[in-house]
């Protein structure tokens, strides 16, 4: 069925860790950059998108893995897209029902999770060739890696752009989360560039360079 044999069995921790670090979808594979750059203007937006993407990734990886013997190889891509689109539609509805204010801010980018090549990539290269449990771990690792990248970028941009951290968390976690807000640079102020799309590219590039430098010094 699959062109290549399943990956050699590895430990659960390795699978998760690989998704988070060695092939981190955002910083190493550079996948899913459109939502990454568009939504990361604040931590709360970044977290909401990370949760939605992660949910879709886990759902699609597990179901594609469970159904892999019944999905005909020559229609596997339409089948994968169908599964991803189904979970995305469900994520959109759940978000509109339970996190309406955040949904209004990032609705478009939740809808285009369906075109996120990170998710289709895991379906094609991992879930369609491996049993359910490793696929779940793979999805968890990849989702955590994507979330870490989104949150890092979101926190840096919010800090530079608005001088605050974790503002608006009450939109996701209820009223008591309003107290999580940290004002670091005081009101107003801030670097406007950091909140705009060009700032997202610049900061993402700098973070990427820093990550590569750390990786290099580890290897040598």
């Amino acid at each position, binding site marked *: 069925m699959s062109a290549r044999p399943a990956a050699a069995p590895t430990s659960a921790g390795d699978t998760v860790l690989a998704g988070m670090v060695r092939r981190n979808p955002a910083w190493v594979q550079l996948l899913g950059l459109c939502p990454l750059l568009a939504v990361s203007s604040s931590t709360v937006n970044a977290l909401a998108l990370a949760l939605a993407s992660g949910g879709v990734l886990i759902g699609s990886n597990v179901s594609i893995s469970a*159904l892999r013997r*019944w*999905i*005909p190889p*020559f*229609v596997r891509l*339409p*089948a994968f897209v*169908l*599964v991803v*689109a*189904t979970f995305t*539609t*469900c994520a959109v*509805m*759940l978000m*509109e*029902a*339970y996190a*309406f204010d955040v949904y*209004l801010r990032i609705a*478009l980018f939740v809808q285009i999770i369906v075109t996120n090549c990170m998710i289709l990539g895991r379906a094609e290269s991992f879930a369609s060739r491996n049993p359910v449990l490793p696929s779940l771990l793979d999805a968890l690792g990849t989702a955590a890696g994507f979330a870490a990248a989104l949150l890092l970028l979101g926190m840096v941009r919010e800090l530079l752009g608005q001088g605050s951290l974790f503002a608006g968390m009450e939109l996701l976690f209820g009223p008591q989360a309003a107290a999580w807000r940290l004002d670091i640079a005081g009101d107003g102020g801030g670097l406007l560039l950091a909140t705009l*799309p060009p700032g997202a590219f610049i900061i993402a590039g700098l973070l990427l360079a820093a990550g590569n430098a750390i990786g290099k010094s580890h290897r040598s």
Partner: protein
Amino acid sequence: MADSMSGSVLAFLALVTGCGILIAATAALTGERIDANRAQRFQQTVTAMAGPGARVTDLQWSNDVAHLCNGRALLRGIASGYGGDMHWLAAADIEAAPPALTGVRITRHQETPGIADFVNQPERGWLASLSGRSAGEMAQVDTVSGATITSRALRRALDSALQRPALATPECEQ
């Protein structure tokens, strides 16, 4: 070969059905809450636009005009923008002659993100510049460059809405 082909088609159809069921179940689970969220958001928008002393519960819409009984009226309508229908809501001062806008909100739209973002920002920018205008004065508001179709459609829709006959006849029992 024919057998495996029809088996594949069946498997694919089963997958489609399964996905459909999952979506229908989620829709059934969330539908009520989504409707409540949207209604609450609409009510918040109305309250924010109505001004002091307005009758905002149980709005009586006739010909897409609802009188607020504080010298203002709400107008609603659909303008066709660049990406499809834009549902708009406006408040007008009907004691002024001719009636003048006091606020405009876009409640639903599919305009291009990044280019027509001003439709989401009622307090500042282009939508706020419509306030104070009456029918015939819309041409004084510049269109937004890059979003000419969007802004022109809104100008035209609001211009004709301000001339609605229903605006002149308040239905308020004291």
